[in-house]
Each structure stands twice: as C-alpha cells, then as structure tokens.
C-alpha cells in the first residue's frame, strides 16, 4: 500500500486545534467543577491524543495492522488499570 501524505492545511488545522485544546484544559482547571474536573481534563487530553495519532502519526491513512497495534496497546493498559483498580476500589466493601 502506497503511503499517503498529509497536506499542510491539515497539519496547520490540527496544530490550531491542539493549541486550542491546551488553552481549554488550562481554562477548565481554573474552575471548581466538583468531581468533573478530572474527567474533563482527561477527555480533552484524549481528544488531543486522538488528533496526533490520527493525523501527525498518519494512523488515519494507515493499514489495519497499525490499528491493531494501537488498539492492543490501549487495551492492554486498560487491562492493567481495570483489574488493579478492581482490587483497590472494592477493598473497603
């Protein structure tokens, strides 16, 4: 499969979005949103990460194999978190 290059316009747009998100996450942290603060911060980070993976890292135009690796990596971190936190969160029950 031939590689596909990403145009400069896309790159600039992505950078703008990333900088905007950085500002947004900083801005959000100035307010006390209760328990929502951390989820909001992390959600913004996930968006930024997705942009970088999809465009800067070309995942959007990559073979399925790349996707398998990405999904596997994230999934395995998920295993690590979910099963360990199962223990910590249910210790007090």
């Amino acid at each position, binding site marked *: 499969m031939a590689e596909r290059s990403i145009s400069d316009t896309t790159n600039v747009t992505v950078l703008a979005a990333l900088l905007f998100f950085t500002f947004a996450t900083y801005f959000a942290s100035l307010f006390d949103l209760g328990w929502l603060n951390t989820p909001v911060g992390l959600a913004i980070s996930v968006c930024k990460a997705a942009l970088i993976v999809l465009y800067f890292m070309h995942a959007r135009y990559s073979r399925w*194999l790349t996707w398998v690796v990405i999904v*596997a990596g994230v999934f395995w971190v998920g*295993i690590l978190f979910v*099963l*360990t936190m*199962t223990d910590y969160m*249910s210790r007090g029950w």
Partner: protein
Amino acid sequence: MSAESVTNAGPVGAEPRNYLNESYGVRSWLLTTDHKRIALLYMVSLTLMFVIGGLMAVLMRLELLTPQGDLFTSDTYNKLFTLHGVIMVWFFLIPSIPAVLGNFFVPLMIGAKDLAFPRLNLLSWYIYVFGALFTFYVVVSGGVDTGWTFYTPFSTDASQTHVVSTTLGIFILGFSSILTGLNFIVTIHRMRAPGLTWFRLPLFIWSIYATSIILVLATPVLAAVLMLVTIERLFHIGIFDPTMGGDPLLYQHLFWFYSHPAVYIMILPGMGVVSELVTCYSRKRIFGYNFVCYATLGIAFLGFLVWGHHMFVAGISVYAAMTFSILSYLVAIPSAIKVFNWTATLYKGSISFKTPMLYALGFIGLFTVGGLTGLFLAALGLDIHVHDTYFVIAHFHYIMVGGMVMAYFGGLHFWWPKMTGRMYPEGWGKLAALVVFIGFNLTFFPQFILGYLGMPRRYHAYAPEFQVLNVMSTAGASILGVGYLLPLIYLLWSLRYGKRAGPNPWLATGLEWTTPSPPPKENFEVTPAVNEEPYNYSEFLPKVFAAEEVEVG
C-alpha cells in the same frame, strides 16, 4: 576430510558453503547479523546460565537432605534460591526457545532471508550478555536474598544484599526481551514467503508470535516496577513502604502483571515445538489446526488477566480475588484444547519414537500434570491452604521444567541436524530422555505431597516429618542432573563425530527442511513459495517415496 563425508550426498571432498563455514574467526561471530549465528551465540550463553542455575538447584537439594539447615547458613541458602530463580527465569527460560530455536528457525520456517532487523537482533544478544554480567557480578560479590519475586518492603528496606545490581541486570535484560519480541512480530507479519498465509504457518511460528506479543506488552511493566523498587531502595521515598503512604500490594500487582504472563512466555514456545514434533513423528497433520492457532492466541491474551491468583491470601479484596479466580480457570481451557489436540493427532498416525518424540510425549504428560494442578491453585478455597507451599513449587516446575525444558531439549534434538549438519547419537538420546523423565518425576512429585502437608517454600530448615519426601526429591534431582549432563556431552561429541545429516532426515514438512543442512547464509537459494497447508504429510510422503523409488530404479 573425515570418512563420514564420503557417505554424504554432497560433493566429495569439499563441504558445501553454509552459514558455519562462510567465514571464520571471532570477529565473524561477534559482529554477525546472521540470525543463525546469533541463535548459536544465544545457545552457548544460555547453556552457561542453565548450568549455573542448575548447580544452585543441586546445592539447594543437598541442603534439604536433612531437616536441620546444616550444609549452608540460612543466608547462603536464601541467596541460592534467589539466584536460582533469577537465573533460570530471566536468563534461561524466558529467552530459551525464542532466542535459540526461534531465532534460528523463524526466518527459515517462513522462507525469509533473515529477521526484519538483523542488527537489532545482535544488539539483543549483547544486551542479554550485559544483563548477565550484572548477575555474575551479584553472584561474585556476595549474592542477593530477596527471592526472585523481590517482594517489598523486604527488597526495599530489609534486605542487606545486592538488590539494586540484580534488579538493574533484569531491567537491562528486559530490553533484550522486548527487542527480540518486536523483531519476531515484525518479521512474522512482514517477511513471510509468497503464498505463506497465516493459516499455512507452522504452529511453532504461531506460538513464537503469541510469545512475542506477551514479551512486548508485559516486559515494560516489569521494567517500570523494577525501576520503582530500585529508586525506593536507594532513596526511601515510600513508594511501597506502608509507613510512608505506599502500598506493598501495588508492587505485587505490577510485578505479577508481568510475571504471570511470563509463565506463558516460557510455556507457549514449548507448545509450539511440541506441535512440530508430534506431527512429524506421527506423520499427521495436527488435529484441529485452527483450534490450536486460536488457543495459542487465547493463552497469550487470557494469560494477562489472571495475575491476581498469586495474591489470593495477600490482602486483596475478596471481589478482586473472585474475578481473578474465574479468569484463571478460563486460561486453562486453551491449554486443555492443546493437550487434547496433540493426543488426537496420534490417532491413526504412524508413530516413531525418536528422541525428540520421547521428549514431546514426556512434555504432554508432565504439562498435563502441571496444568491440572494449576486448577487447584486457582480454586480460592484451596489456595488458602496450598499457597506458598511446595505444592506451588511442584506445580510450576512441572510446567517450567517438565514442560519448557523438555520441549527445549526435544526441539534441540529435532533441529540439531539442521543447525549443525550432524546427527546426534540416537541411543544416547533416548537414554537421556528416559533418565530426565524419571529423574524429573522423582524430584518433583514428592513436592506435591510435601506442599499439601504444609511445607512452606523457601525453607532452609524444615520439620523432621518432611524428611523422607525431601530425600526422595534430592535423589530425583541427582538423576535429573545426570539426565541433563548426558546431552551436553553427546551433542558436543556429535559436532565432530556425528553422522552427517541430509537436508531432511526426519521426512518432515516445513520450509526449513527444504534447504541444505546446515543452511547457507542466505537460507534459501531461491525464495520459496508456499501453496499448501502445513503438516500435509498425507500428500508430502507419497511424493517423497515415489522420488526415492525413481532414484533407486
């Protein structure tokens, strides 16, 4: 030239060009990027580590002859079992089949000229050696006494020994594991010969692939946790120290997230080898090829979900314990599938009992015992009794030694002609296999009983009523030792005096048998193409026999 070369099919007088005689000298070995030579480098280093680790086991068994700890001080004994564990787990079992047989045969079996990243492959070996040097330093400078598990806070606060050097050695070794695994994954994905689709791959390749996934995804967690232990030991920040807000159980979680899948790093390649052996020596396609493939991947995946069963009595929540228990049962299913399929492969086969087959049959029996006793440990209500006793020791030695080491020896004999161009002496081989099998069972079966009786592991002195079983175990260990010594001698002997091997002495299918023994540097004269399923003995053999008849006629 020696007399044997005359009987060889090759041109009389000159040995054909191969990877061994391609170039000579120390440089040509230490700077090689040829996967076959790197495999041999690994083989030599691993054998050295195996001998050291084995000697430590012998010393431990000698100590345990009597209930009083009279041969060594308890500190020496503690260092012996720690180093035995560290060396055997990280410097022998984890790299064993992947780094030696995998390195040699993955490219050959998929019809590639080399691994995807040959220089990285050499680097992996150097990293391995570098890590091993740390371990040597630890051995020479006074040892380490934490147990191979490095449980905190003992390892970070209490131990007075060389913990940091040891953890650093393992940390470094981790890079070797990761790079080896990465190399295999990429190679298997990208370097297969034309026509060699996934479901035409030999099962050995499948198992190396699954192993590599574990290596790549689990090892970094070990690296992270060893880093934390090292920092904690050096700076006492309180990461795992409960008096400073840390939690020692977090160490155990992270450690076992690596170390349980590591068990599958050790056994999966063994399963792959056994699949090759069983098919070849019964001349059958493996029963349920697809199921075995899926089971291989299934083990690699489920193996990641069960680490908590090492912590049932450690103080984790009962709900977490329940979750880990059911998941532990699930991982037994793909293992069971494999055992059933190997057995069924024999059905209506044409079974020949060459040395590798003896090892394979031994593997199936011992792995079955090891696997089934794993169910005892996964059962919550029973684990609260047998946890951390000799029952556990026996269980995992049935998997590691009865499984992995048997498979390693089986594979080594099976591919010895291909690797060296020489046959090993069959009679001695069979004898050694038998001695290993008997010695192994005598060593480790009594330990199941000891465990249920309640003898805890890592005991330097023990209650007198455990003595008889311990003496049996030590007697077995001495037999086992002889069993391991024999191949070391006769395989070396065969390098010079063994009968020369043709390209396919076992009439096996698979690309590695289509090239001369030993193979040329670039593996194949022409890139092979594949257009049939693996282990297609029912079509392959008639062709071979017909060709032979033509030759004779």
